[in-house]
């Protein structure tokens, strides 16, 4: 570690330049976060990249900091890509500043480069802790380690048991039902068909304890056992009202996890479920809040186990760290409901006319469905998120710029799906159009030529353009026919000899053993700080010698630490909700967008995407007559083609 300073003096000019740039960027970005750095040494430092949001755990960071001097306080704000350290003495801070700038911290499999700057004072806006949902209770140490082992032993996952207990291997977890089978296709139980295997005997004393302690007053008659490996999860859902009575009891065994509860108004409460704890869901927490487990391998949890007798500081979570997940098995006990539900939450109640719980949209089966899906899950979302979206789309992608600048000046160019006009500024010959009025207004305010229109019906004369671009547009069409129609419409605009450049999001986010930036930008904050965190992570990538092109494709602001898989599709045609910054698990999906707002009450919007597999875009374009695919390539998580149009 001491050698770091001398290493630096050996650095080439180029490396120094990169470092300077990185520091500069960090400073600017930190200003965006409201953190002022100072050149004067103080006792406190901000450590850029050394945050929970970058996958750095408190333990890992503490270890290197302590070598510099006695640490008074280490503050790691949730999801942020930075941390604050205060040393007992200024000397410690000086030492850290001198030795740890540019230090590569090994975190699990990846190495993270730290950049430190002095700060006058440590203040950070930490997320106020959300109180537990109404009706939710967590009872720690509900079963003993012996009972835990016994219960885990009861479950025989061998397939021969399947016929008596109903067992399924869902994409991201193993599930087994006792008493009655919960059918994921209908989101309900077949109440007339009890399973041959009732609840295991070993459960009886546990359930009696639940009754004795007043957690429930009826004995459950249905048990669902879920087994989650590290990295697996369950999509957010409300247990079907008409299927089960009020109280739901869930035992966590084997390992802890974090369960997220979401209120329809946008509130989110993350609840740590320690092993051997009992979760009791009643009332609002059972009927109105959805609950789910984000598939990931690492959770953000309080650094010390919360003690019931310790007074908690409301609103302060200064002791967060990361916890790696193990294999967790949950036993969920429910009582089958035989009468319609009369709960006080009709908006979420299938007995009272609400659609069955969180059905979500399905892949369209006819053109009208497709148009409706795109209207709700593309157009409306863009019009709502337009200004925030625009804030995140400031840097044109270099290869698109290269295409535009390779065209002779005076060309007639159209950007079909121009968004906020990112490329309209690159080439003055461009005219843009977009489906979203709100985005076109942003273009107009910037002085660009743009109008509102649909990519399937562009009001430009046939054969009027020398070139067209369609960047990140065609993946929003929900059927193959409509995607083809979009390419045809683009080609219709071309003069003979004209060219078109098309970018669509790729299913393959890892190409030539390189992860796309979309995947690399892990651990982002959910309230729009990603633009700055991306810059940080991008800058840090520079040092690892990678080609830096652009602030990434598809800057979805993810809200979850995520080196894990996405949420799977349950066995029906419903579209799955993608977990931001993870590999895709299906080609048709909904991608969440979290509006900037800093409050957990901001709702989440979902955009429909069809992500393209390798070769699919070329195949699509080959169906258009007169078109030759001049070149095709993978660029930052996108499949891209340059088309050449000639007279047929």
């Amino acid at each position: 570690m001491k050698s770091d300073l001398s290493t630096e003096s050996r650095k080439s000019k180029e490396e120094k330049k990169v470092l300077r740039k990185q520091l500069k960027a960090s400073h600017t970005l930190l200003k965006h976060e409201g953190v002022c750095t100072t050149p004067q040494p103080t006792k406190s430092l901000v450590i850029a990249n050394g945050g929970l949001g970058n996958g750095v755990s408190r333990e890992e960071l503490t270890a290197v900091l302590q070598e510099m001097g006695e640490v008074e306080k280490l503050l790691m704000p949730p999801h942020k890509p930075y941390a604050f350290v205060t040393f007992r003495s200024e000397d410690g801070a000086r030492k850290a500043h001198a030795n740890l700038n540019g230090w590569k911290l090994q975190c699990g499999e990846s190495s993270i480069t730290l950049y430190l700057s002095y700060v006058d004072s440590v203040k950070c806006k930490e997320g106020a802790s959300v109180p537990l949902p109404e009706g939710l209770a967590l009872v720690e140490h509900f079963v003993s380690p012996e009972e835990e082992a016994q219960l885990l032993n009861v479950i025989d996952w061998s397939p021969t048991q399947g016929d008596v207990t109903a067992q399924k291997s869902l994409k991201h977890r193993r599930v087994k039902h006792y008493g009655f089978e919960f059918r994921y296709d209908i989101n309900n139980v077949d109440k007339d068909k009890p399973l041959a295997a009732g609840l295991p005997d070993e459960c009886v004393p546990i359930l009696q304890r639940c009754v004795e302690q007043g957690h429930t007053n009826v004995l459950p008659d249905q048990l669902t056992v879920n087994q989650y490996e590290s990295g697996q999860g369950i999509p957010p859902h409300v247990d079907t009202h008409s299927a089960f009575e009020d109280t739901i009891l869930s035992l966590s065994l084997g390992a802890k996890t974090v369960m997220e509860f979401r209120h329809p108004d946008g509130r989110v409460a993350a609840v740590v479920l320690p092993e051997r704890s009992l979760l009791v869901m009643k009332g609002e927490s059972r009927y109105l809040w959805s609950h789910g487990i984000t598939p990931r391998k690492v959770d953000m949890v309080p650094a010390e186990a919360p003690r019931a007798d310790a007074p908690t500081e409301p609103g302060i979570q200064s002791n967060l760290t990361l916890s790696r997940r193990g294999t967790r098995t949950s036993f969920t006990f429910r009582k089958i409901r035989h009468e319609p539900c009369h709960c006080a939450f009709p908006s979420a109640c299938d007995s009272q006319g609400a659609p069955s719980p969180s059905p979500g949209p399905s892949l369209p089966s006819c053109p009208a469905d497709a148009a409706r899906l795109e209207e709700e899950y593309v157009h409306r979302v863009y019009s709502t998120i337009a200004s925030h979206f625009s804030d995140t789309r400031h840097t044109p992608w270099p290869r698109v710029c290269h295409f535009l600048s390779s065209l002779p000046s005076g060309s007639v160019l159209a950007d079909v799906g121009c968004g906020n006009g990112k490329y309209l500024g690159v080439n003055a010959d461009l005219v843009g159009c977009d489906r979203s009025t709100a985005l076109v207004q942003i273009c107009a305010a910037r002085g660009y030529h743009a109008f509102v229109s649909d990519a399937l019906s562009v009001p430009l004369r046939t054969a009027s353009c020398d070139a067209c671009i369609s960047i990140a547009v065609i993946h929003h069409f929900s059927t193959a026919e409509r995607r083809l129609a979009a390419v045809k419409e683009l080609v219709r605009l071309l003069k003979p000899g004209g060219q078109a450049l098309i970018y669509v999001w790729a299913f393959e986010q890892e190409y030539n053993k390189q992860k796309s930036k979309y995947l690399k930008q892990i651990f982002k904050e959910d309230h729009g700080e990603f633009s700055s965190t991306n810059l940080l992570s991008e800058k840090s990538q520079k040092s690892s010698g990678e080609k830096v092109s652009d602030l990434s494709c598809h800057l979805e602001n993810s809200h979850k630490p995520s080196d894990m898989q996405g949420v799977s599709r349950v066995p029906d045609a419903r579209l799955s909700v993608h977990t931001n910054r993870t590999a895709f698990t299906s080609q048709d999906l909904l991608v969440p967008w979290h509006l900037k707002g800093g409050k957990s009450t901001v709702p989440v919007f979902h955009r429909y995407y069809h992500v393209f597999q390798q070769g699919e875009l070329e195949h699509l374009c080959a169906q258009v007559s007169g078109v030759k695919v001049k070149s095709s390539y993978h660029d930052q998580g996108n499949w891209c083609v340059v088309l050449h149009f000639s007279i047929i």
Partner: protein
Amino acid sequence: MKLLTHNMLTSHVKGVTKGYPLLIKATEVKVNQLDFNPQFVSRMIPKLEWGALVQAAEDLGYRQDLPGELIADYEQNEEFLKKVHRVLLEVEVMEGCLKCPESGREFPITKGIPNMLLNEDDA
């Protein structure tokens, strides 16, 4: 909407064969002062539908004395290029609508932005 954009737009209503040029019905027009770039104007001119531009300028009352036929050697004619610059880039329709010459379908222009969306069935 600048007249450069208007020059490119056409009606795309289903079944329409002669949707160009769109008629402009303006209720608010403004003129912006923009830097004159003779090279840009010169290289745009051959790309334009000249007649449609002159007609649009006429309708809005900004034709100046632009000829119905494009003149030769306009590249050297700075005075001419300035006039084209004015109608092409400085005149902007802020409110009003564009009307399809064949079907009569109108497309609103609001805050300078033409909205050319059609319903799914007349697309």
